[in-house]
């Protein structure tokens, strides 16, 4: 009974970690561009397909294909920013949403045209079926990797935004673009890099999640919605909040799916969010500084 419970929590945390990564990616863009990037999922999906092509069409080993896919995702993120967001001068919030939805549809269409709509299995060397038994809790190799990668990536991001000059400059640009330019920070370049970084994080999530969801142009629709929910749950502007939100969402969803109903698994996640937001409208970890005059 207890092992079963821990089991459910562990696998919930694993999927939740993937939500958390995509949520982080969304939050990073939201903070700098003030836009909900609805193309986030599709950017990750196309990058995952790119990895798939390297692996299965060109037979490149995973250890090389994965970094290549990350580079690809970085460039893809920068391209989306350059092609879709930069041309819009002083767009409204609604305009921005429409722009990212446009990017989403272009990427979705591209993936369907290039790789077809039928579902493929992702030839990952990390298997969901290979399991380890840790004191009674069974954990798959894939889940272990998901934990390891997510935790390291979050740690790297934390250090990056805390201590690196570029990371602090990204935060500065997000908080006050005019002031950032007055410091000599090339805000356009920073924005472009932000999109690249965000896309890269999403791509990591895509590659990790692909063995579970399988590969088709729709693979990211559900994870993206969950990630969005996680980000909102965490306060939309907080990186730790997004991570926490993802974890909570993954676990609750899995618990509900196991003990109550699989059909309503997704719905319950959103119910939780509504409840949390009723109690704390700004999300769990939204930070607010008090502005004094």
């Amino acid at each position, binding site marked *: 009974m207890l092992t079963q419970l821990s089991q459910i929590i562990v696998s919930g945390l694993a999927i939740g970690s993937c939500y958390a990564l995509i949520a982080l990616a969304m939050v990073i863009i939201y903070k700098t561009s003030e836009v909900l990037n609805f193309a986030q999922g599709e950017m990750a999906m196309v990058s995952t397909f790119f990895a798939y092509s390297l692996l299965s069409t060109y037979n490149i080993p995973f250890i090389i294909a994965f970094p290549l896919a990350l580079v690809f995702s970085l460039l893809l993120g920068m391209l989306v920013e350059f092609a879709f967001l930069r041309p819009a001068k002083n767009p409204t919030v609604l305009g921005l949403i429409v722009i990212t939805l446009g990017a989403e549809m272009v990427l979705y269409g591209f993936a369907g045209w290039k790789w077809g709509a039928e579902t493929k299995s992702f030839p990952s060397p990390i298997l969901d079926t290979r399991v380890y038994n840790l004191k009674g809790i069974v954990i798959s190799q894939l889940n272990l990797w998901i934990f390891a990668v997510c935790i390291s990536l979050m740690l790297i991001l934390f250090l990056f935004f805390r201590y690196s000059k570029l990371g602090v400059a990204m935060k500065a640009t997000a908080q006050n673009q005019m002031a950032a330019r*007055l*410091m*000599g*920070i090339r805000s356009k370049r920073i924005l472009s890099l932000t999109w690249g970084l965000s896309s890269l994080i999403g791509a990591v999530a895509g590659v990790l999640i692909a063995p579970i969801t399988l590969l088709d142009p729709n693979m990211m629709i559900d994870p993206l919605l969950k990630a969005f929910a996680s980000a909102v749950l965490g306060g939309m502007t907080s990186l730790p909040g997004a991570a926490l939100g993802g974890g909570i969402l993954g676990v609750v969803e899995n618990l509900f799916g196991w003990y109550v109903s699989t059909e309503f698994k997704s719905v319950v996640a959103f119910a939780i969010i509504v409840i949390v937001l009723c109690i704390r409208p700004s999300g769990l970890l939204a930070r607010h500084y008090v502005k004094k005059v």
Partner: protein
Amino acid sequence: MLKVKNIETSYGFVNAIRGVSLDLEEGDIKTVLGANGAGKTTILKTIMGLLEDQPEKGTIEFMGKRIDRMDTEDIVRLGISYVPEGREIFPELTVFENLKMGSYTRRDKDGIRKDYKRVSEYFPVLEERKNQQAGTLSGGEQQMLAIGRALMARPKLLLLDEPSLGLSPALVKDIFEIIKAINREGITILLVEQNARMALNIGNYGYVLENGRIVLSDETRVLLENDDVKEFYLGIKLEESVKGYQRYKRKKRWR
């Protein structure tokens, strides 16, 4: 050092600046006086290249180089720092990170460390609060941070936009003392102010701006004796009997 020649700047169809010229030599503290809405901020933003496709007319030269319509980021690299109106600090960065961003374009670690020490000497409170989020500082402390952050770039020319705004008289005095000290170190200063008394006391030359035009400019000691400046900017009452007529005449002459 800075030569602004006949610039015109507009927001859409509204002309905010109509033919303004300024001339600063190295070591100057020059000041631009003007009421709210006169166009002071617009002049500084135009110099910094913050207004897209502006100035519409005229040229701006810094150390012999044309800088009008250059990117802000490149203008900053030439050695001009701007302390904007309303401080515009990074509210969710710490005080230390704000100062670090001030030195963003620099690579000389030793120089940066030295300038950080210097800023801490000017504004000890910044050193005390270096790990505090800048948004939680008081208005005066934020102004100090904004000035300190600009100094971290080790500029040749410092543009200050109403540093006295919203501060207590005692604090204004302190800040102006520090501005003087900064100037003594060899940094040229262009100070924009509504607080004419303070500005005329530290500047060596002043421009009076009305409706986007410079209506008067002279050494500050001359301006301090000027009847119009006395009445309209320093609030010193002239003889009662002729006042009404004089004001009418003067106002008219200035347009």
